[in-house]
């Protein structure tokens, strides 16, 4: 590092120019980079969703061809999971965890820089497959073998490499969070005093470290099956295609909790602030999060009820799966009890949080329905599951992320967002997302499989409604971009406290948060 930058840092200001962002080791800069990356990916993945909804607007093939349609569903899923939701959560972690536990920065700042800068390259490599001969990956975000091995286009090897890079990035981010939480807490900040957002991320980080290597393993097995003559997933060589699904879902099921646990954390910060009342059952929230994380490892084969598992296996995975409803219900009850007899106001962040509680609950119930193995024989691979996971990931995780942005953006930029626009954004999104996804329950139950570019006529009406909702929801997020830029450019100045009912160390520093906070650790009583 040059003397000039060291000097700059002494003056507690941000260096300027492009190199500030390339070389930064500051948790706030890196948090910003993560959040912008996630936002761009949200728009890219969202554009793909618009292509999907446009093709499904009416029966018949009118916009794209079936192969490209499959590429769109695949890339939409991959980009939203690995490019939008996960990086956004890491962005929140970077900005908030040090400020919430009274630390000057993340424990491993240079690794932090690296774990971010891998992402744009991985993302570019993934998107570049679209332009390769034979097209991009077209085998679904779950990339089941042998469709993704023997029968996949050449670009699949680039996809594999991109997944490896994303995995590296996530593991490094997770290590950093664990090291920060364990070593950097201010004096007096015991584990059971940590804000719930920190707790949920701390647990999520362990999930990441446990399962990202499994994902790396499964794509490596694909790579050797494709190029080096192995037969892990090829029955003709003594392998088993279903083995792929076991390994994939051992990663994939915890992965969905990796996306939802930090959302629980964000919502658990927002609700007490606007209810002006402490979070109900703090310790049971922590235990519920930990038990959900643990259970997530032992239920994964509920994604595979139709693969021909032995009945005993199906029974076990059914019982274990429906058990997750217990800690999940505890969470919803706790949020409800936090709101109960509070003194609530409904600024934009609170709207998103309450929207989250309602819509996530619906997604949770459809999840329970699918955990029941015999009925899952009907629901599996239909639009019912598409509706379910969009209720928990779009109306769930994404709503939490949007709420979190409105909640903390005054702290990040020093400016209040425009409350009226924020509320319009919320209601616009909340209504359109239900028009988009609620009918998908119906068509799924009535028998429409997922991942099809064209459908028989009885599904036409609901698909059209769903598409209309989809276009409206997509447009709402462009509106959000406008609100964010407007807030960064100016607006009513925010106080340090920002929200009347907010508690926690991040609200004790000025808004915008100075480039370096807590250079001397605060004392926590």
């Amino acid at each position, binding site marked *: 590092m040059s003397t000039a930058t060291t000097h700059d840092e002494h003056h507690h200001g941000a260096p300027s120019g492009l190199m500030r962002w390339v070389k930064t080791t500051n948790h706030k800069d890196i948090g910003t980079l993560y959040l912008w990356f996630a936002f761009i990916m949200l728009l890219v993945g969202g554009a793909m969703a618009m292509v999907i909804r446009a093709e499904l607007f009416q*029966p018949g*093939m009118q916009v794209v061809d079936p192969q490209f349609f*499959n590429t769109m569903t695949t890339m939409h899923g991959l980009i939203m999971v690995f490019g939008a939701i996960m990086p956004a959560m890491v962005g929140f972690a970077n900005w908030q965890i040090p400020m919430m536990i009274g630390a000057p920065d993340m424990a491993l700042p240079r690794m932090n820089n690296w774990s971010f800068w891998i992402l744009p390259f991985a993302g570019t490599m993934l998107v570049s497959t679209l332009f390769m001969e*034979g097209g991009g990956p*077209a*085998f679904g975000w779950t990339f*089941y073998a042998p469709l993704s091995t023997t*029968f996949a*286009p*050449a670009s699949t090897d680039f996809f594999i490499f991109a997944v490896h890079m994303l995995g590296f990035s996530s593991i490094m981010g997770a290590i950093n969070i664990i090291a920060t939480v364990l070593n950097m807490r201010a004096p007096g900040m015991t584990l059971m005093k940590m804000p719930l957002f920190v707790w949920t991320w701390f647990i999520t980080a362990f999930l990441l470290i446990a399962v990202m290597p499994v994902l790396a393993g499964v794509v490596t097995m694909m790579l050797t099956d494709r190029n080096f003559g192995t037969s892990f997933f090829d*029955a003709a060589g003594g392998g088993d*295609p279903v083995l792929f699904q076991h390994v994939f879902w051992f990663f994939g099921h915890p992965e969905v909790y990796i996306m939802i646990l930090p959302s629980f954390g964000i919502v658990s910060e927002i609700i007490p602030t606007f*209810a002006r*009342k*402490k979070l109900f*059952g*703090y310790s049971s929230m922590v235990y519920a999060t930990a038990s959900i994380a643990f259970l997530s490892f032992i239920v994964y084969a509920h994604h595979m009820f*139709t693969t021909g598992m032995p*009945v005993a296996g199906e*029974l076990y995975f*059914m019982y274990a799966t429906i058990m997750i409803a217990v800690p999940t*219900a*505890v969470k919803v*009850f706790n949020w*409800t*009890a936090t*709101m109960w*007899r*509070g*003194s*609530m*106001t*409904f600024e934009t962040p609170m709207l998103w949080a*309450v929207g989250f509680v*309602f819509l996530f*609950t*619906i997604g949770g*119930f459809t999840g329970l*329905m699918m955990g029941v*193995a*015999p*009925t899952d*024989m*009907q629901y*599996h*691979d239909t639009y019912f599951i598409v509706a379910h996971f969009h209720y928990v990931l779009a109306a769930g995780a994404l709503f939490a992320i949007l709420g979190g942005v409105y909640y903390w953006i005054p702290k990040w930029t020093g400016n209040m967002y425009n409350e009226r626009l924020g509320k319009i954004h919320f209601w616009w999104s909340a209504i359109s997302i239900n028009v988009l996804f609620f*009918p998908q329950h*119906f068509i799924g139950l*009535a*028998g429409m*499989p*997922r*991942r*099809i*570019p*064209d459908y028989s006529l009885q599904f036409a009406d*609901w698909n*059209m*409604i769903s598409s*209309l909702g989809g276009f409206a929801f997509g447009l709402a997020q462009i509106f959000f971009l406008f609100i964010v830029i407007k807030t960064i450019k100016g607006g009513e100045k925010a106080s340090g406290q920002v929200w009347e009912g907010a508690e926690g160390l991040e609200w004790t520093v000025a808004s915008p948060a100075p480039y370096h906070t807590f250079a001397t650790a605060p004392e926590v009583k």
Partner: protein
Amino acid sequence: MFANTLRRALCSLWGALVLLGAGNAFAGYSDTINLVKGVTDISHKVYDLHMLVFWICVVVCVGVFAVLIYSIIYHRKSKGAKPATFHESTTVEIIWTTIPFLVLVVMAVPATTTLLALEDTRDADMSIQVTGYQWKWKYDYLDEDISFFSVLTTPREQIEGSEPKSENYLVEVDNPIVVPINKKIRFLITSNDVIHSWWVPALGWKQDAVPGFINDGWTELSEPGTYRGKCAELCGKDHGFMPIVLIAKTEEDYAAWVAEQKGAAEADAAAATQTWSMDDLIARGESVYNTNCAACHQANGAGIPGVFPAITGSAIATGDMAGHVDIVMNGKAGTAMQAFGAQLNDVDLAAVITFQRNALGNSAGDMVQPSDIAAAR
């Protein structure tokens, strides 16, 4: 077309709203918004279980939402609400952990019995092997020596929109699977290439078709009828275009159908011994090509660059006859090109090869006879 669909869409939306208000409108819309009830004992069990779990969810959901909404309305700062200070209660927390647990136990009992019944494929009266191919189904009647492929018949024009869509758009096939009623039928389900999933909602289940492994499922129908389904596992480009049509017949009708199939097989065998003219071969070859090859090599023979080679100008399809016969009959291991020797009869193979050599922009000028194919087997 567009305006009509939009009008119908808005009607359905309206219907759904009415239905939310007044439960009795349910009947009219239930077949497009709820689980298919199906026509077998098992599918009814699955449906009942679905409704049970659904209503449990609705009751709990309404309860939680009622509390939330009450709180949102009355516990507002603007209504002068002062925040309470409670933030934990071990008793309450134990109660609301135990109750969901007990509800789950109540659900698990019927779920277990239904699952055990669903998976009990013992003591079947007959067996049919179902094999998934990119993008069609093959049915082998193991007790009858009958075997055929079942391919989508919806014309391309309907899919592309130049013709109006017919009633059974995308759920119609050339050779439906035919089964007798009142017999326990065991399906042995497997695949020739990627994973597919055989799903007829009216039977109450789906089962994955995994290459190299055999899964099973069973059904016993009591009413003659036609039931339609689809491949449910993403299996590549034409995943959305490999439907299933199952026809249940009375025992007499089924016996007649079996006899008819056997007669057709004999007629085919006779045709294979004749010498065919080039024009007849090309004419027959065109329909064989459109049913079996066009999904990949495209109707005009141009293929899809980087995925499926073109037939037009292909070195193999315009070169040495033996090489062409070989790739069509034996396929190419490790690619999507299947071994059609096992799928098509001698006449169809001779026809499609002759067609590829002398149409789609090719003009090799030679032909191959069914007897040559028989000799090459």
